């Protein structure tokens, strides 16, 4: 049985490698071995290069901001105040709403004609004319990344909060006696205690965000003009709108060395943590 499970992934993996070296188009059957043709052709493709850099920008910003904001949120929630449990439930909302729904809600908020964000910014006098949030390259990428950050911050915050609760109070007392201020307590007591949680959560987030698909697909389909394509959305477009499955698999396999490295790292730390 366990072999079946592993086979469920190992076999598609094998198929993936075979397909990426073929000229297979939509339709059954294996067609034409072409060796490394796709792998060699891709680097000179402008849209592909853009998708690669977008994917890494996307992953980097996701990890950094989810971790940073998650830490701020966790430190905020770790204080004692009336209604703390209610607040915890409410900030969890972005994580509970299904991601495809989240993407649609933000698509509507960012709508350039009737979107509420432009309305509020215009009313506040912060902008003079409506902004097409998803209309121009760099801004569109930042817009979709910020949706991913909105969605994922609560998970980081709650993981870190669980870590914060485990830090013995005595360590803070000792630090205070030694004359440490708030910042020093955070740097020398809080952070060292959270190293493991931060490490695992960041590695997992990096792996997951290198494979993200639905937010970008729903909000921009990789547009305008390929400016927000991730490797995943480009692979979908090449394979199912362009029909070239072989090339599409090659696209999706390109970042595999980085992903594999991250997976090895995270499994290593997790197995060590389990013992």
């Amino acid at each position: 049985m366990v072999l079946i499970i592993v086979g469920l992934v190992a076999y598609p993996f094998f198929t993936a490698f075979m397909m990426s070296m073929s000229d297979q188009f939509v339709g059954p059957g294996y067609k034409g071995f072409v060796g490394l043709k796709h792998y060699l052709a891709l680097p000179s493709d402008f849209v592909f290069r853009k998708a690669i850099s977008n994917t890494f920008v996307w992953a980097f910003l996701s990890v950094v901001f989810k971790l940073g904001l998650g830490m701020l949120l966790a430190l905020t929630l770790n204080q004692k105040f009336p209604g703390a449990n209610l607040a915890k439930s409410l900030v969890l909302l972005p994580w509970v709403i299904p991601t495809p729904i989240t993407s649609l809600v933000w698509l509507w908020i960012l709508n350039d004609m009737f979107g509420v964000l432009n309305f509020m910014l215009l009313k506040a006098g912060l902008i003079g004319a409506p902004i097409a949030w998803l209309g121009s390259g760099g801004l569109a990428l930042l817009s979709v990344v910020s949706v991913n950050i909105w969605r994922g911050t609560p998970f980081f915050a709650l993981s870190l909060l669980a870590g914060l609760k485990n830090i013995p109070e005595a360590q803070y007392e000792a630090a205070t006696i030694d004359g440490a201020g708030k910042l020093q307590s955070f740097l020398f007591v809080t952070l060292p205690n959270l190293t493991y949680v931060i490490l695992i959560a960041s590695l997992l987030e990096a792996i997951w965000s290198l494979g993200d698909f639905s937010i970008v697909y729903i909000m921009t389909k990789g547009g305008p003009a390929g400016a927000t394509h991730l490797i995943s959305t480009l692979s979908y477009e090449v394979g199912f709108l362009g029909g070239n499955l072989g090339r599409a698999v090659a696209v999706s396999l390109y970042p595999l060395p980085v992903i594999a490295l991250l997976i090895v790292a995270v499994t290593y730390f997790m197995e060590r943590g389990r013992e």
Partner: protein
Amino acid sequence: MSGAQRASTGRISRILLLYVPLTLFLLWAMFPVYWMLITAIKPDAELTSARGNPLWVAAPTLKNLTGLFGETNFPIWFRNSALVSVLTTLLSVVVSSLAAYSLARLRFRGRWLISRGVLFSYLVPRTILFIPLFSILQFLRLTDSLAGLVVSYLTFMVPFCTWLLVGYFASVPKEVEECGLIDGCTRAQVLFRITVPMAAPGIITATLFSFTLSWNEFLYPLVFNTSSLRQVVPVGISDLQYGDVIIWGKIMAAGVVFSLPLILVYYPIQRYLVGGMTAGAVKG
């Protein structure tokens, strides 16, 4: 107590360090949800009118909701989502429990390799596997069917649940099981009367995560299923946006209806879940 110390540093620092960030975070987290709710009960005319206050609704209506159920395929998508998610969850939890138990208890050659493989399988992004899976499903004649979705979801849910459950089963002391065996239980009785109840928190966590993962899944149904009648909610409603320009009311109503099961299921046992996630994914 750090709480007491902080309070003594004065009200201003408490406002700056607690109430300001708290308010900002709450606004940030809740506004889009509020916006979804308010849009869902707005008449179309209000959605695009330049007059009036868009943050409020002048004439609340249920027309979006009734239209969603009456004029679109939403009821069918919802049924499909429910069917696929429930079936996948049941199958993956049962299969994973057995697999996890054997990994946690039985000693056999290659155990280490397999448990590593299970974790790997879960972590490999689905965006790498969707095209080969598509051609496999095509070969099995399972594309454009709900059964195909169940099969494809299992490929990532079983590894995840197995990995999560191994930790829980391993935490059940072996001695308790041996007592059961001495008292005359069979191996199966030990499993179902002693080990499973003791690993219950893990099984509940795995169930909830499986359900959520399949409820949210977007890529596989988008790629594998083409006809609208065999589609699930996430893909179905994101196609709605291209049909008509001003159907945001209906889309947001669909969002509310589709989020409700997760909100109803999650909130009562939220603590359980975060604990489970940190135990499984973060604490190891």
